[in-house]
């Protein structure tokens, strides 16, 4: 059974009878998913735009101009202006950096916690496993958004005074969103560990005297990573939505940090006279989430060795 899995990295342990490396095989499978490839390109463009855009588009995000308030898209302001005449393209590019960074950081946090808890539960049978899974189930049945709001309400001021407004809110939002998204990863990792640790190659490693840590890091974890990568990709999208939701409810980043959700929050009272103000950030969130989900879908096809393609 194990020998029939072509994408398994365990093939690297011995001699190399295979012509195709696992990553090339995964890329070949990924390319079959047309929407995923298109999405990857669009997502790459968005990332490039928010990373390098502010270097090219020189208008300041807080340049107030009362002669050009609530203007629609024009040559001077390709995405129009808001109620203070601030250029929306500059704000979108700057806010996109934060929205995407929050998504990535929260995903890393969720993966880190999830893999740790899942690995510990998967390696230790008995009460440790039971307790950790009870904790996971408890977290799964918590109402996430109300608790997110509660935590932010309670701890915002402390973190703000400790790290400054931008970094403090960033750290808190990442911790809180990441802290509520690790459960699916933990379950996935635990399930993978249960089946993998009984496999022959792990038994061989154990017989050769590999410590538990080495078995986990070198042999089991690399084989369990496929579903984790897929879950992580989807988590980025979920974290972006979570951050935008918080900002949209007026409880995320402060007004001087224009994340996409915050822009929507500011724009929603001007829907009738300046719809462009809400449409551009909304479309940006939608596009980011959609492309990330498609890439996740493509990765699922690419990394699932059972699927014949």
């Amino acid at each position: 059974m194990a020998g029939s899995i072509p994408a398994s990295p365990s093939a690297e342990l011995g001699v190399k009878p295979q012509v195709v490396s696992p990553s090339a095989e995964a890329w070949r499978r990924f390319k079959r998913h047309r929407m995923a490839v298109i999405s990857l390109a669009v997502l790459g463009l968005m990332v490039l735009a928010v990373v390098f855009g502010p270097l090219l588009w020189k208008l300041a995000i807080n340049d107030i101009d009362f002669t050009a308030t609530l203007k629609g898209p024009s040559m001077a302001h390709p995405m129009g202006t808001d109620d203070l005449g601030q250029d929306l393209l500059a704000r979108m590019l700057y806010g996109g950096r934060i929205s995407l960074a929050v998504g990535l950081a929260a995903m890393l946090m969720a993966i880190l916690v999830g893999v740790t808890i899942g690995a510990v539960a998967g390696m230790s049978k008995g009460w440790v496993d039971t307790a950790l899974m009870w904790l996971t189930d408890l977290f799964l049945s918590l109402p996430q958004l109300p608790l997110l709001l509660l935590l932010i309400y309670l701890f915002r001021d402390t973190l703000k005074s400790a790290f400054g407004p931008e970094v403090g809110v960033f750290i808190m939002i990442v911790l809180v969103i990441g802290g509520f998204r690790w459960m699916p990863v933990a379950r996935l990792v635990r399930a993978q560990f249960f089946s993998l640790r009984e496999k022959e190659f792990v038994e061989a490693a154990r017989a050769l005297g590999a410590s538990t840590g080495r078995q986990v890091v070198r042999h089991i974890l690399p084989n369990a990573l496929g579903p984790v990568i897929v879950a992580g990709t989807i988590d980025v999208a979920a974290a972006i939505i979570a951050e935008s939701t918080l900002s949209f409810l007026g409880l995320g980043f402060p007004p001087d940090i224009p994340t996409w959700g915050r822009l929507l929050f500011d724009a929603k009272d001007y829907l009738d006279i300046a719809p462009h103000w809400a449409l551009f950030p909304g479309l940006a969130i939608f596009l980011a989430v959609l492309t990330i989900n498609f890439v996740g879908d493509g990765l699922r096809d690419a990394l699932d060795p059972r699927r014949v393609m």
Partner: protein
Amino acid sequence: MGPYLLRRLLIAIPSLLGISVVLFTVLALAPGDPFSELALNPNVPAEVRAALRAKFGLDDPIWQRYFRWLFAMLQGDWGFSFISRVDVDTLILQRVPTTLAVIGASQLLALCIALPAGIYSAVRPYSWFDRIASTLAFVGFSLPTFFTGLLLILLFSIKLGWLPFVYRADLTSTGLTWWSEQIKQTIMPVMVLGLFQAASWTRYVRSSMLDVVRLDFVTTARSKGLSEWWVVMKHVVRNALIPVVTLVALTMPQVFGGAIVTEQIFRVPGIGSLLIDAILRNDTPVIMAVTFVFSCLVIFFNLVADLLYGWLDPRISFR
């Protein structure tokens, strides 16, 4: 069914206790003090403040405070809203029916879309219907509720002027006009929530149906000469719905999250907008109580899912 129900109920109790511990710990760890306004008020002498703290037991060890709070909650004493000057439980009881009505209607809408769409997609996989439905489901699943809400307002309220964008609890008209106004103002919140749910459910139903369709007993049913309709409805759908029920129960917290956002956009006077108002105005007793109510609702729906599970899959209930 009886013992199964009882066991499920008994499992729900530790979860509720766990949630209450989490909630209380969060609140106890938080900086700030419910009496901070009193502390800043120079007209309140220090002795009075100390007496008040002693009266409300704020200086007791944390576990004593937890049990006191828990027993008070159990006896229905949920505290007093700082802002509205009413008991928290009356405030919440006023609001819960609206939230449940909006959520219920949207779940119904989601079911009416997701079940037929998912089943038909799976019966004819990779047909043009399946492709369109899958793409739409993917798009709907990636559209955040707050953006769909704004788009609907932009289209139906501002451009077309068909529907009101503010939900009013105090409609003055009576009879048929009341009903038509009530339905008009409910359409958009229900659509926002329902379409989002429908998108993710369609995906679940489709993939779960595809898993079941290729099993041996379906081939057997076909070779017995049963009609296609009967095979799909009786043999495939019922079995395919079992994992769907679990997934739906697991996404219940998300539904409530979506409800909070929707209520906030359309100013629906439910517990979600109550929560946001309370947070913006530092009304701690209301925040605690609403969060707890949301937890109870999530656990309640998990329980309902377990019961449905037992009904759909008789193999489970007899274990």
